[in-house]
């Protein structure tokens, strides 16, 4: 069977830029909300821009929550980006309290204007790697810059899920997480020039294994 990556389409955000990046790397990708097509993929990207509650509602409406859960049980590589990475967590406090996918324990909270100058954080910030060895960061220098756009961030319950951290104002937050087959970044690697491209390449290589 041909190798391909599924980008989960649940009508939240710009999926095209991830698709174009995979195309640029000569990787077959599908933008899909079809459970079968997603389950058969060699790796799955969960993107997303927008509000947490809406996103969970969309996933539910499209019967994709179960699909993601079974991907996780099958140990399929999953890569959550931005909101997609927040959805991996147990719950979010964005405009109410919402249940997430609960694949990684922890919650999603908001920046506080007392600790940071502006919300959202928009722009390039550096990521400090908390581990030396992980496939996702292979070949990427520590403290490299990535492009962020967000008002909320994740607080993993277990520190061992933290792969990278970032400081914004006086807030230090987790910006790359991992657990078993799952990785997630708060930033947009598809908008982070060469090191972002490298990160996708690393993910794809992992999916090929």
């Amino acid at each position: 069977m041909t190798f391909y990556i599924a980008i989960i389409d649940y009508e939240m955000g710009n999926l095209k830029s991830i698709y174009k990046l995979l195309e640029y790397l000569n990787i077959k990708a599908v933008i899909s909300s079809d459970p079968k097509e997603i389950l058969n993929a060699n790796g799955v990207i969960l993107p997303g821009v927008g509000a947490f509650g809406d996103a969970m509602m969309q996933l539910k409406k499209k019967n994709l929550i179960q699909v993601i859960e079974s991907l996780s049980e099958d140990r399929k590589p999953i890569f959550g980006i931005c909101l997609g990475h927040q959805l991996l967590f147990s719950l979010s406090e964005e405009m109410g309290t919402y249940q997430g996918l609960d694949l990684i324990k922890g919650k999603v909270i908001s920046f506080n204007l007392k600790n940071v100058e502006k919300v959202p954080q928009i722009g390039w910030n550096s990521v400090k790697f908390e581990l030396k060895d992980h496939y996702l960061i292979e070949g990427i220098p520590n403290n490299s810059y990535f492009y962020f756009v967000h008002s909320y961030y994740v607080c993993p319950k277990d520190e061992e899920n933290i792969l990278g951290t970032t400081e914004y104002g006086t807030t230090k937050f987790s910006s790359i997480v991992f657990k078993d087959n799952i990785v997630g970044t708060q930033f947009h690697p598809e908008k982070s020039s060469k090191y972002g491209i490298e990160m996708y390449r690393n993910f794809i290589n992992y999916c090929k294994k």
Partner: protein
Amino acid sequence: MVLTKRIIPCLDVTEGRVVKGIKFVEIRDAGDAVELGKFYDEQGADELVFLDITASSDKRKILIDLVERTSEQIFIPFTVGGGIRTVGDIKEILRAGADKVSLNTSAVKNPNIITEGAKIFGSQCIVTAIDAKRVYVNSPEEALDKITIKLSDSERYCWWEVYIHGGRTPTGKDAIQWGIDAQNLGSGEILLTSMDMDGVKEGYDLDLTKIFNEKLNVPIIASGGAGNPQHIIDAFKKGRADAALAASIFHYGEYSINEVKKLCQKEGIPMRL
């Protein structure tokens, strides 16, 4: 390590090619838009802005084609502005691969487009572009319904008036108040152009940039007036801008982006290098 300040080359485009208006009137050609964009990405540009200055509906397809070609080859954020009138236009441009749209005339005429756009696509992709021009007054009492400030380099006061239609039409609107409103309506960033300084290459309007930074919580992109690296340094240090937009100083190879970023870093401004 902190959030870095951004340097954003602006590409004024017409029919897929780059031009730069000097004071919005005289126009020179400076190359193919995607090629130039790629070149800037390699030089370390933090984002790109395309402003479609023809913006007539019959040329729309060419713009969409440019956006698509850009998103296939350039992997940094890019914003598209010019002639965006409806939520449908926003959707078309974002679908073609842009990360953000910048709204100017249409937002002034119909502020609801900001709210609608932010609701559907998220605040992060709705940039309100404001073209502001100084209106000098002798005292704040002369313009009681406007936000006036005392200028840093003279005894005079001024407020800033919003212009639309590519800087051709004054609106009587207070630019600072409009910036606050645009933020409250859901705009995620403000692209703030000084009409007094645009094309003059004598530096940004620092008083304007600074007051926007003080009054608003969303990032401010300073625009109009960059002639040398010191101007960009001043926009960050004195104007307290979050990002600096520039065109001609990069297009004509006077300075490379990397060179400017290094000079900024030397001055203690956080940069991605």
